[in-house]
């Protein structure tokens, strides 16, 4: 069983996000709709119906393949040998506190992002590594990132362009584990072969940065957006696409779990 999106080539990695970005821009509502959405929310006498905005929540997903083999500088490719060069899908949740509103610019504040991805494959037969056994070798990753998030929503708020670019930067701590069908895999410690085995789990730390673009959805249905604000406190809804680059190897002391990839999702500001 292989859940990796095997066969994905680097070109596809760029084509997909570019296509998604173009699609997002094409979906952007026209200026008159933006104007209506803003007028509903901000016109005098109706401003009281808008709830205050404190933060944002994101649901996101995208392809992921950790750059484990970078550790070996091309001399070995244990990850590719077992899991191939394909990606799997990483799902994530993010919560941001928009601590500061910068007038005529956007919001700035801290965010916490938690994601999860898993790879499943069968181990190779030692007698014939071109063949697979029926013994699973599964690896999961759980990155947790603390981020500084800057969202620039001035275009939507003041220029009737329903686009909001953003950037994020921060630290990531990734928990990972490899199992072999009977529990956590382990191998003898090369430095101490007679001592306790080394378990296939650990934590890697590193840096993460991302840049993306959000499409403001409120203008598509201004009244519904206002109703949602009044009933649930959700001020704005966005679709987003971003490029994310992470280097998470405990600064060359642990498993490299970072990747350069894109992600898409939904953002709700509340």
């Amino acid at each position: 069983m292989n859940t990796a999106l095997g066969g994905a080539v680097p070109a596809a990695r760029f084509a997909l996000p570019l296509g998604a970005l173009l699609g997002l821009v094409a979906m952007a509502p026209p200026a008159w709709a933006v104007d209506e959405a803003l007028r509903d929310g901000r016109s005098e006498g109706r401003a009281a119906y808008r709830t205050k905005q404190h933060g944002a929540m994101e649901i996101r997903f995208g392809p992921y393949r950790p750059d484990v083999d970078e550790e070996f500088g091309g001399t070995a490719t244990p990850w590719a040998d077992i899991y191939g060069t394909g990606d799997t899908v990483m799902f994530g949740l993010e919560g941001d506190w928009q601590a500061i509103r910068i007038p005529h610019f956007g919001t700035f504040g801290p965010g916490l992002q938690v994601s999860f991805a898993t790879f499943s494959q069968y181990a190779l037969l030692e007698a014939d590594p071109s063949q697979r056994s029926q013994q699973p070798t599964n690896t999961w990753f759980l990155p947790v990132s603390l981020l500084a998030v800057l969202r620039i929503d001035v275009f939507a708020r003041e220029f009737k362009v329903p686009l909001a670019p953003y950037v994020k930067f921060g630290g990531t701590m990734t928990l990972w584990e490899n199992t072999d069908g009977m529990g956590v895999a382990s191998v003898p410690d090369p430095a101490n072969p007679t001592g306790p085995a080394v378990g296939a789990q650990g934590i890697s730390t590193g840096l993460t940065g991302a840049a993306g673009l959000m499409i403001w959805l409120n203008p598509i249905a201004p009244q519904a957006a206002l109703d949602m604000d009044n009933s649930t406190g959700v001020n704005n809804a966005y679709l987003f696409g971003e490029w994310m680059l992470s280097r998470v190897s405990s600064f060359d002391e642990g498993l490299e779990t970072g990747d350069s990839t894109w992600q898409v999702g939904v953002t709700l500001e509340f």
Partner: protein
Amino acid sequence: MSDWHGGPRTWALEQTKRHSVQRAASPSLSSQRSLPSLPVGTACAPNQRVHSQAPVQPKPLAMVLLGLALVVGLWASPAEAQSIKVEPSQYRFKRDVERPNYPFWISREDCLRDKKHGDGETFIEVQPNLSPVGNYALQVWVARGADCTDNEIRLTQGSCWNVLDEIALVNNKIYEISTQEIVAGGEPITDDTCDAQVEWSTTLYFLLLDGDTVLASTKWSETQVDTKAPPPPVNITASGGDNAIFLAWDAPLDQQVIDAQGFAYYCAGGGMEVMGQAGASGLGGGTGVSCTAGNLTPDDYPDESTRCGSTGSPSSRSGVVASPGVVADSVVPIANGNTYGVGIAALDRVGNVGLLSPLTCATPQPVISFFEHYKDSGGRAGGSFCGLVPGSAPSRHAGLWGVGFGLGLLAAYRLRLARRAAQKSGARG
């Protein structure tokens, strides 16, 4: 020996009848009349002269007799109602190995391990409250729906069968009931009694009897007989892993029972594949190749000394066989290079083990997993999630990021406060 106590369950134990046979009623006047009559004038002062010829005064005599009758009546024990009572804590299932699920149900294992007729130490222990004790009989009758307190039903129709008959001389005495006699259903006990694939509810009637007269009774409805195990899975495949065997199977098409609780795997070394006709008994996977190994016999109850793993999930369709200590519930060492025959039996909620499936052969062999390959390539990572020990790289980085993030939060908060203050002062200005 396990001693299971009631716990939080709700018990259906109920005291159903108190037969009002009034044996020790108040003394009758006739018995009082049999008392020796006091001489007339006894109540007079000793120096008082008794006139023997004095006429008997009937009215004072009647008053005296009535008074005596009252006194005797007050001192006599009140009318007693016979009763029998079995609290949940007084009904205990004694087993060699405690079973947390359905502790009062009788499984095939409970039947086989019966202390009285089987080869184990399993029995039902009851300690009823009896009132009064005496030369009465305590009998326990079992029925599947019939009312055993009815003499005609109990004694003539044969729908109740007796599993205990003793003299109820002592209150709170402990009695032992045979599980196998309950399972037998009133039939003679044979070697095959426990192999009957049955699943039915029972009611145990505890009767306090004077001859055939039921003085008191109570019943217990929490014990069910369940010796029926689910059928084995089908289309079993096995493949060798590193000192392990990986199994896959399909659920049986005929779901004969709904209480399947998992599967147990049985292995024997020296497995040997032989060509045969696919689909016949003992053939694995419908491949036309059968496997034979040791004392594993398809379509028979497996020997527990060959168990090599299990899963507690009835929806599982795959599992792993390995040595003791590597997987739970295994007593068979599994090593690379040896061929094993493997079969699977289904388990139910009371631990009944079903018949063994056809066998399939597999040979464990070394494999290359990701982590092994990574470490062999010189990989530096691994250990545990406890990598955040003081001084380690993850710990330093996590600490730095934590401090940085905290400072960032603090700065954001201070900035926000400053902005609010500025807005307020601007509004006032």
